């Protein structure tokens, strides 16, 4: 009852019913056609969508990746664009498209380009963006990339188009890490933000939990049970080189890089009960941050690096608290409900996504940190592990749907959801990487 009263009008009443019906159809229909391991499906519609025409890129059928199709899918998935049919249109970045033609087709913007194979095996990927309404060329760019980076080039084009048209940075070229469990096999994956092109970073027959990105996107910290206890490792994503940074007596868990990348917050039980500690990025200079006789865990830094939000049961039930990174007395942040965990702070520092228990259900919530009000963002009841995209426009989380663990993204208003469909394994612990790779 409490959570219902906290919900915004957007998530209540008729809006909730209609969204539920919208979600059910496309998601159910999508599953049989999923050929890749992951497939992203969108549900819900933004209030205003910019109509855009993205044509097939010249020669894209001869490239290893369908560049134009990836750009189109990225833009659509953001919920801010509506793709127009461009079948049969032959344009590239050198064309002089007839703007009045495209205006009459209803386009506000037009994107075209090419993907040409170079003599050395790389690809020259080019694009151009036109503002159809104003009838002008907004600019373009070219990228010379290896076949392995064709998807990245497509995502970077989508990011540029998104930024030029919305004024905000896109996150299509960022990456997401997550963990799957298939039978006895645990795998830590790194995937493009659209859920495609997943590559495994670590495979183990023992559990892997709590992946966390370094702020430069080059390293992943995580907890591995490979030595039959929880030990924190940091792994270079590109080379696979890994080092254990916290392997003390007891359990070592919940790593979180500071925004400057110089420190790690971790949970250690070496002094008897799980407490927060800070250490250098290689595990040096360990010092205790919290001193309670209760559980303190799940540290997450504020973007300015000055504070740490964490979970503690010092008040008798797990609640979220905030402490200065320099130490001191924590202050309590959540007050509603008897179980609030897994805080994630938005990149602007103004909002906090977290999980609350409501009866037997675990629900993703979003709190306005200035006012303290919270609202639910989902209709599912096993939500876990929220993480913000670096532009703050999306939150990724794990949940359970149709008897499987799945990854979903939602806009912070809860209106637009996309699902990364797992066809073979249970997926969990998603964490959105930073800009750059």
């Amino acid at each position, binding site marked *: 009852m409490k959570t219902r009263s906290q919900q915004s009008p957007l998530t209540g009443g008729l809006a909730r019913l209609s969204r539920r019906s919208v979600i059910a159809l496309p998601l159910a229909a999508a599953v049989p056609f999923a050929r890749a391991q992951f497939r992203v499906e969108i549900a819900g519609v933004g209030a205003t969508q910019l109509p855009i025409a993205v044509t097939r890129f010249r020669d894209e059928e001869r490239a290893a990746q369908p560049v134009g199709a990836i750009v189109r899918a990225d833009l659509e998935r953001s919920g801010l664009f509506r793709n127009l049919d461009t079948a049969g249109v032959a344009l590239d970045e050198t064309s002089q498209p007839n703007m009045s033609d495209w205006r009459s087709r209803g386009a506000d913007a037009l994107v075209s380009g090419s993907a040409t194979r170079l003599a050395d095996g790389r690809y020259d990927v080019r694009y151009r963006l036109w503002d159809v309404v104003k009838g002008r060329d907004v600019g373009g760019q070219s990228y010379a990339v290896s076949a392995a980076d064709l998807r990245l080039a497509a995502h970077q084009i989508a990011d540029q188009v998104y930024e030029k048209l919305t004024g905000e940075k896109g996150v299509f070229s960022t990456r997401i890490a997550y963990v799957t469990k298939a039978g006895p096999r645990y795998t830590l994956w790194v995937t493009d933000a659209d859920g495609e092109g997943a590559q495994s970073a670590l495979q183990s027959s023992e559990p892997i939990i709590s992946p966390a990105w370094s702020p430069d996107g080059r390293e992943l910290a995580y907890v591995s*049970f490979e030595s039959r206890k*929880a030990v924190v490792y940091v792994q270079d994503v590109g080379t696979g080189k890994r080092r254990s940074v916290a392997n003390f007596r*007891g359990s070592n868990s919940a790593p979180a890089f500071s925004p400057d990348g110089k420190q790690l917050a971790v949970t250690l039980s070496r002094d008897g009960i799980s407490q927060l500690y800070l250490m250098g990025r290689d595990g040096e200079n360990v010092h205790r941050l919290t001193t309670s006789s209760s559980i303190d*865990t799940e540290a997450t830094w504020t973007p300015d690096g000055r504070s740490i939000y964490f979970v503690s049961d010092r008040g008798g039930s797990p609640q979220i608290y905030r402490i200065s990174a320099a130490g001191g007395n924590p202050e309590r942040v959540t007050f509603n409900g008897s179980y609030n965990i897994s805080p994630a702070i938005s990149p602007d520092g103004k909002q906090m996504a977290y999980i609350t228990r409501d009866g037997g259900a675990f629900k993703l919530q979003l709190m306005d940190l200035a006012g303290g009000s919270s609202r639910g963002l989902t209709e599912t009841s096993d939500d876990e592990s929220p993480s913000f995209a670096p532009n703050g426009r999306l939150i990724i989380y794990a949940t359970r749907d149709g008897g499987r663990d799945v990854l979903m993204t939602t806009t912070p208003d809860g209106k637009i959801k996309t699902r990364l469909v797992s066809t073979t394994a249970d997926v969990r612990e998603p964490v959105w990487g930073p800009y750059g790779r």
Partner: protein
Amino acid sequence: MKPSIKFLLPTVAIALLAGCASSVKLDETPVETRTPNSANAGATGTGAPKSQVANVDLAAQNAAQIGKVVYFDYDSYVVKDEFRAVVEGNAKLLNSDRKKHVVVEGHTDERGGREYNLALGQKRAEAVVKSLTLLGVQDSQLEAVSYGKERPSVSGTGEAVWAKNRRAELRER
């Protein structure tokens, strides 16, 4: 009773062991093993050496009978009275051999966050470790670790399943 069993068991065991190789008359049933060895047991020296003494380690037998799992109530870290025997039995074992090491692994049921459950399981493991140290076990013989909700002993949902998963397991290292 106790002394008699203590003294009887080894005797029977030795007899049984010896019976494998030689024709000790344990009973009169016509079980004939016509292998050359048994036929000439003792005569050729190819059977069990006559100096052999089979050892029966009652402590080890008892150890195997001592429970290794402590179950917990929901949201609780209290070692219940019914598991007193498990704790005391293991304490006795560890106290009798200071070279023995035990890892206490805490576990939770599947509900809730992974990291918070890891901390909960740790608290359960620490509770068992504390009970053991109160009975004289050295700190250096023990380590409390946690698997949180990652390693359920029974899969599925519902209280019957959850009750079996809220546990601490003692594992010799």
